[in-house]
C-alpha cells in the first residue's frame, strides 16, 4: 500500500514535468563521473529556464564509443540532434558534409545572436573552417601542462618549477639523487610529446597548415626537433628521468604514489590530481627546448566539441541553437570551467572567473588558459586537422613505444610512423573525395 502511494506520487511528478509539449532534444555525450553529473545539471538548468525545449543528455560511453554510436545511429536514421565528438574526430565530422549542420549556419538560420569573436580563437580555431566559421561548438577543451610534486622538489632542494626541457633534465637528476624513482611521466604521449611539442616550437606537424588546408596533407613530425626530443626521451626512459606508463592517462597513478615527481597531463586533470594528491603540488606551463625557440608559442587543445547532426525538424534546431547560446553564456561557461578544469571558451567567461577570484584561490588553474592564449595562433599552432587521426594516434603510440623499449631509434621510429600515417591520410583522402 505504501509502495503504491509512492509510485503514484512518482508517476504524478513525472507527468507534471513532461505534461506540456516541450520539443525534445537529444544530446549524446561522453562525460562520465562527476563531469557527467554536471552535464545533467547544466541540461536541467536550461530546461528549467524555459518551457519550449527539453534537452535530454545521454551518456554513451567514452569518446570513441560516443562517436561510433552516433555514426551508427546516423546510418540507421536514429541520430541525436547534438553529439559530443573528441578533437581527433574533427576531420571526419567536417568531411561528412551531408551529415552535419555547421554551428554558424544553425545560429544564422535560427536567428540566434552569435558573435564568433567573443570566443577564444585558440579554442575555436580548431573547429573552424578555412573562412574562420565555426562548424562545431567547443564544449570541453583542455591543453597539456606540467604538474609537479612540491614536497619532493623541496626534499631534493629544488626551489623552482622547470620551464624548459633542459630544466626538466637537471631537476630530474637532483630528484633521482634524492631518492625519487622517476623524474616524470606523461599522459597522452602523442598529444603532449609530439603534437604539442611541435606547436610550442612553432614547427609543423603536417603540411598544408597541419591539414587545415585540405585532405592532401602529409605528416612531417619526423623533423629534427621532434626526433631530438623523442630521442632524448628514449634516453631518459633508460636512466629513470622518464618513465612510460601507457597510452592514456594511467600515469596519474605514478604521480599520486609519488613514484614520479612530475607529470605532463591535460589541464583538465587538475580536479583529479587535487582530489588524489596527498602532497603539495604545483602547475606550470608545458616545457620547451631552450635554444630551439625564442618565445614558445601557444599549445593546442584537446577535448571535445558539440556537433549538430542533420535530419531533425526546424523546431528542434531552434531549440539546439538556443541551448548552444545558453552554454556559451559567461556564467554557465565560468561555472563549467571552474568545476571541471576545462578551459573557458569565451573571453567573458575567463574575465568572470578572474573577477570571482577563482584563480587566486586555486593557484595553477589559470596556467592552461595563459598558455593557450599566448600570442596569436599561427598555422602550426591552430590545431590539427587530419583524417583517420584516431588510427594515426595509434600508429604514433606504437612508434613511441618502440623507442621507449629501446628497440628502435627515434629517427627510424618516427619515419615509419610518418610513412604509415600518410597511408592512412591517403585512404581518408580517397574515401572523402
Amino acid at each position: 500500500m505504501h509502495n503504491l502511494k509512492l509510485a503514484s506520487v512518482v508517476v504524478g511528478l513525472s507527468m507534471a514535468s513532461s505534461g506540456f509539449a516541450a520539443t525534445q532534444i537529444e544530446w549524446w555525450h561522453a562525460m562520465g563521473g562527476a563531469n557527467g553529473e554536471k552535464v545533467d545539471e547544466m541540461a536541467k538548468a536550461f530546461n528549467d529556464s524555459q518551457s519550449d525545449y527539453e534537452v535530454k543528455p545521454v551518456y554513451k560511453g567514452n569518446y570513441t564509443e560516443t562517436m561510433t554510436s552516433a555514426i551508427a545511429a546516423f546510418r540507421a536514421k536514429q541520430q541525436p540532434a547534438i553529439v559530443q565528438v573528441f578533437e581527433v574526430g574533427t576531420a571526419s565530422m567536417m568531411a561528412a558534409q551531408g551529415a552535419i549542420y555547421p554551428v554558424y549556419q544553425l545560429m544564422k538560420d535560427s536567428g540566434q545572436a552569435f558573435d564568433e569573436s567573443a570566443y577564444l580563437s585558440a579554442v575555436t580555431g580548431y573547429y573552424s573552417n578555412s573562412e574562420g566559421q565555426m562548424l562545431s561548438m567547443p564544449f570541453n577543451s583542455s591543453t597539456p601542462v606540467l604538474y609537479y610534486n612540491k614536497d619532493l622538489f623541496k626534499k631534493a632542494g629544488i626551489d623552482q618549477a622547470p620551464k624548459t626541457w633542459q630544466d626538466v633534465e637537471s631537476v630530474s637528476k637532483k630528484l633521482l639523487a634524492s631518492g625519487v624513482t622517476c623524474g616524470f611521466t606523461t599522459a597522452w604521449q602523442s598529444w603532449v610529446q609530439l603534437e604539442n611539442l611541435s606547436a610550442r616550437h612553432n614547427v609543423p606537424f603536417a603540411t598544408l597548415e597541419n591539414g587545415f588546408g585540405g585532405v592532401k596533407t602529409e605528416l612531417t613530425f619526423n623533423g629534427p626537433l621532434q626526433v631530438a626530443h623523442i630521442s632524448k626521451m628514449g634516453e631518459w626512459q633508460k636512466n629513470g628521468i622518464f618513465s612510460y606508463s601507457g597510452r592514456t592517462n594511467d600515469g596519474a597513478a605514478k604521480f599520486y604514489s609519488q613514484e614520479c615527481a612530475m607529470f605532463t597531463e591535460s589541464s583538465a586533470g587538475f580536479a583529479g590530481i587535487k582530489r588524489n594528491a596527498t602532497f603539495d603540488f604545483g602547475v606550470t606551463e608545458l616545457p620547451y627546448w631552450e635554444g630551439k625557440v625564442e618565445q614558445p608559442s601557444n599549445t593546442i587543445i584537446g577535448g571535445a566539441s558539440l556537433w549538430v547532426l542533420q535530419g531533425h525538424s526546424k523546431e528542434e534546431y531552434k531549440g539546439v541553437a538556443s541551448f548552444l547560446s545558453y552554454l556559451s553564456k559567461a556564467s554557465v561557461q565560468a561555472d563549467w570551467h571552474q568545476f571541471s578544469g576545462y578551459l573557458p571558451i569565451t573571453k567573458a567567461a575567463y574575465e568572470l572567473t578572474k573577477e570571482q577570484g577563482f584563480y587566486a584561490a586555486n593557484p595553477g588553474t589559470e596556467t592552461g588558459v595563459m598558455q593557450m592564449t599566448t600570442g596569436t595562433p599561427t598555422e602550426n599552432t591552430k590545431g590539427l586537422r587530419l583524417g583517420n587521426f584516431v588510427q594515426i594516434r595509434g600508429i604514433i603510440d606504437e612508434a613511441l613505444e618502440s623507442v621507449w623499449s629501446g628497440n628502435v631509434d627515434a629517427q627510424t621510429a618516427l619515419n615509419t610512423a610518418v610513412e604509415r600515417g600518410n597511408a592512412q591520410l591517403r585512404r581518408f583522402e580517397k574515401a572523402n573525395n
Partner: protein
Amino acid sequence: MTVTFPQKVLPWLLLLPQLLVTAIFFLWPAEQALEQAFYQEDAFGLSREFIGLENFADLFTDPLYYQSMLTTLVFSFSVAIVGMSLALLLAVMADRIIRGKLAYQTLLIWPYAVAPALAGVLWWILFDPSMGPIALWLKAAGVNWNHYLDGNQAMILVVIASTWKQISYNFLFFLAGLQAVPRSLIEAAAIDGASPFKRFWTIVFPLLSPTTFFLLVVNLVYAFFETFGVIDATTKGGPGQSTTTLVYKVFDDGFVGLDLGGSAAQSVVLMAIVGLMTVIQFRFIERKVQYS
C-alpha cells in the same frame, strides 16, 4: 533403421526458429561483410565506391598484418593449451573429491559468468605496474613487470586474462567426460597393478579424447573471435602491436578507426582462416579421436 515422419511441414516448422536465428545473426552479417569488403566508404555512409580487391591488396601488402597473424597464432594456441591443461588438472582433482564436491565445482565454474571486459579490467588492476598487487609481488621477486613496455609481458597478461574465464568452461566438460569413464575399467587396471599415472594416460585420457578435441576447437574459436574485449580492457593491442590479434584489429580498424571496408576485408579473411582451421582439425586431428 530410419525413422520417417509422416509430416513434411512440421520438421521445418520446428527448425524454423533456429534457422531464423542463424540467418539473421550469422548469414546476413556475413554477407554484409563480404559485400562491404569490396567497397570504400566514408564513416557516415554518405558515399560509397566499388574498389574491387583493393582492400585485400592493402592488407596483404602490409607486413604488420602478417605479424598480427603470427601474434594471433601464438595467442590462440597459448590460450587453448594453457586453458585446457589447467582445466583438466582441476577436473581430475575435483573428480576425486568426495566431500563438498558441489561447492568446489560451483566455485570453479563461477568465473565463466564474468563478462570478458570485466575479466580484463580485473587482471589489468592486478597487474598494473605501479599499484597492482601481483605486479608488486613480481617486483619483490625480482621481475621487473611493466606490460606497458614489454611486449612479451603484455602477451602473458592477455593470455592469463583470456584463459582464466575459459578454464571454467573447459573444466565443466572435462568433469563430465571423467564421470563418463567406466569405473570398472579403472578398477581392472588397478588390479593389474597399473599406477594412477599410467591409468590416467592409457585409459582415462584416450577416453577423454572426444571431449579434448571438442574443447580444442571451441577454445581456438574463442581465442580467435571472442577475446577482443579482454584485449581492449588490458593492453589495447599494445605495446607496439604485440597484442594486436586479428580480431582486435578488426574491432579497432572498424569501430575505432571507422574504416569499414578495410575492417570488413579483414573479417572475411578471418572467416576463411577459421573455416580452414576447422576443416583441418576435423580431417586430421579427428582421426586420432576415439569416440568409443
